[in-house]
């Protein structure tokens, strides 16, 4: 097996919370997360809000440092690089941020914003070449050249996100971390962008870490998918297989909750999760006993309360962190 492009090893990130006057508290945003991403694939990450997806993205971009753990990118540990090496390396990984409004400098014209990452290139492109590349990139994400001279505030949310995507793709990076990159886009543009992403993967071998909560989107483009729950990876495997036959109850909940153009009106009533599940603080301590999903899990058993499940291989290429994975395997989807 070839070495993965990214090798994430036991990544943990704690946030010190609490205010100036309040008691300090710890939020564990990432909890001993381990996973790998193969080069040339689209690797989807799904999970509920606040489960640490953006934190993971920031760490991968070396914008944040983990409390513990390591990220091996292309064979080198990301956090051992000298600032200079890191700077050179940056052209290889780019990011599209979740917030298309805050991530564009309100005082810069679109052309300039998009051209920003170009400066890490070894050969500095000429102005004309730069412009050409910017224009091509804008076309590629469905914006027209005239809009290059405008300011971000003149665009709608979706348009802004396309600008952000254009910016990320312009250095032709090996890896693009797209954090909710298409969630603000309307359908036809979303489709265009998704096509663009698949094309870039296919034609240029760009690897995408595609963070989203939209399962349909992941399903449409991702080769592999990882499902996160409260800072941990709870399931991973080929996207298609994972959604067709989830091996973790949380993945099942996700799949069920996905709205669809073919499901009209209120879905049949599901058992509401027990109140305790919702009251459970997101700020959890060090990995304790028991499964984090326990309060919401329909399959919960005594073992789940006593022993935290670890990620394990259940089928070839499929991993899950659930004591009852085998049970799920047999149950009808």
């Amino acid at each position: 097996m070839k070495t993965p492009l990214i090798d994430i090893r036991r990544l943990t990130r704690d946030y010190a919370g609490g205010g100036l006057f309040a008691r300090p508290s710890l939020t564990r945003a990432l909890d001993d997360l381990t996973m790998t991403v193969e080069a040339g694939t689209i690797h989807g990450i799904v999970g509920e809000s606040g489960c640490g997806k953006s934190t993971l993205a920031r760490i991968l971009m070396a914008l944040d440092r983990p409390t513990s753990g390591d990220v091996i990118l292309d064979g080198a540990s990301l956090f051992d690089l000298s600032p200079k090496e890191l700077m050179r390396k940056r052209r290889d990984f780019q990011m599209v941020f979740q917030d298309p409004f805050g991530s564009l400098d309100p005082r810069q014209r679109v052309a300039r914003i998009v051209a920003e990452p170009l400066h890490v290139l070894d050969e500095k492109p000429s102005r004309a070449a730069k412009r050409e590349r910017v224009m091509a990139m804008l076309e590629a994400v469905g914006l027209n050249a005239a809009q290059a001279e405008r300011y971000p505030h003149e665009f709608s949310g979706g348009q802004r996100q396309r600008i952000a995507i254009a910016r990320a793709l312009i250095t032709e990076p090996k890896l693009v971390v797209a954090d909710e990159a298409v969630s603000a886009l309307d359908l036809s543009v979303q489709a265009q962008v998704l096509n663009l992403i698949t094309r870039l993967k296919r034609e240029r071998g760009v690897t995408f870490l595609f963070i989203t909560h939209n399962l349909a989107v992941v399903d449409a483009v991702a080769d592999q998918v990882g499902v996160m729950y409260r800072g941990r990876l709870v399931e991973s495997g080929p996207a298609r297989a994972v959604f067709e036959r989830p091996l973790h109850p949380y993945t099942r909940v996700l799949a069920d909750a996905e709205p669809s153009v073919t499901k009209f009106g209120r879905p049949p009533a599901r058992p509401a999760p027990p109140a305790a599940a919702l009251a459970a603080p997101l700020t959890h301590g060090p990995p304790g006993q028991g499964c984090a999903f326990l309060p919401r899990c329909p399959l919960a058993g005594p073992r789940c309360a006593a022993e935290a499940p670890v990620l394990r291989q259940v089928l070839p290429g499929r991993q899950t962190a659930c004591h009852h994975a085998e049970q799920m395997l047999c149950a009808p989807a």
Partner: protein
Amino acid sequence: MSAAPLLSVENLDIAMRLPDGGRLPIVKDLSLTLQAGDTLGIVGESGSGKSLLSLAVMGLLPPAAIASGRILLEGRDLMALDDDGMSQVRGRRIGMIFQEPMTALNPAMTVGDQIAEGLVRHEKLSWKAAREAAVDLLDRVRIPDPRARARAYPHQMSGGQRQRVGIAIAVAMRPALMIADEPTTALDVTVQAEVLEILDDLCAREGMALMLISHDLGVIARMCARTLVLYAGRRMEEGDTRGVLTEPMNPYTRGLLRAVPRRRVDGAPLDTIPGTVPGFARLPEGCVFSDRCGDVVAACRAGEPAWTQPRPNRGVRCIRAQQEMPA
């Protein structure tokens, strides 16, 4: 009593003032009505004027926007109201959830206080009581450990959490009409389901009308009895959701439906609508969709097609739809 509809928008035009003094029309001749308890979905291309429409109803258009037409709430012309009058309407009669979870909250105020504020103002609650109510509301929008989180500042929350705070602010005063501008864009599906459930509940139990803006057709299908499709500020199609989504009459609606992401076994690209959204400054002659429409004919470019109602409860703007209509 054949009361006035809860909301009725009549012939609304919205134009943006340009720096050089010119005007750029965005929303054109838009009309819609909403009865109490109605749920209306609005879908459309990004930049098609959905947010402007909702802001117009709230009376919060940006200073550069000029609106004309009428917006009636329970028969009262909102556009004739002064700011104090509108303040009584905003929040209380019409609540709004904004598209932008990251910037829509005051960074210097705890989320609990931001929720409580409206209650103190309109329901004349004490701050203590209002803060209690805020904790309940946070709980209702499924924020874990609401009592502690009420004291958090927006930057300490994830995007989804912030959006739920935004929802809590909007539902706090049980408005008669809720305008939700892409309320679940930043939410994961389970929370989205829960939030939609909350909104559904409010509509069902309290007769709240809902105007839901989304480009997620699944969400629209889940939530809305009726759907309005906008393109470049124009109504393209309107009708009951099932009808619109299963038997679209406008080529744009059909394009949208085809673009819904789904796994392609053959690895072929997803269907898209060709071309890009034209800027409002250079809309094509005739039908605004004509330059991207696969079924375009010469007549499409001759003049803007009229709004027609081929069936009860169904409206469409397309000459082909008219032509194909059985007499």
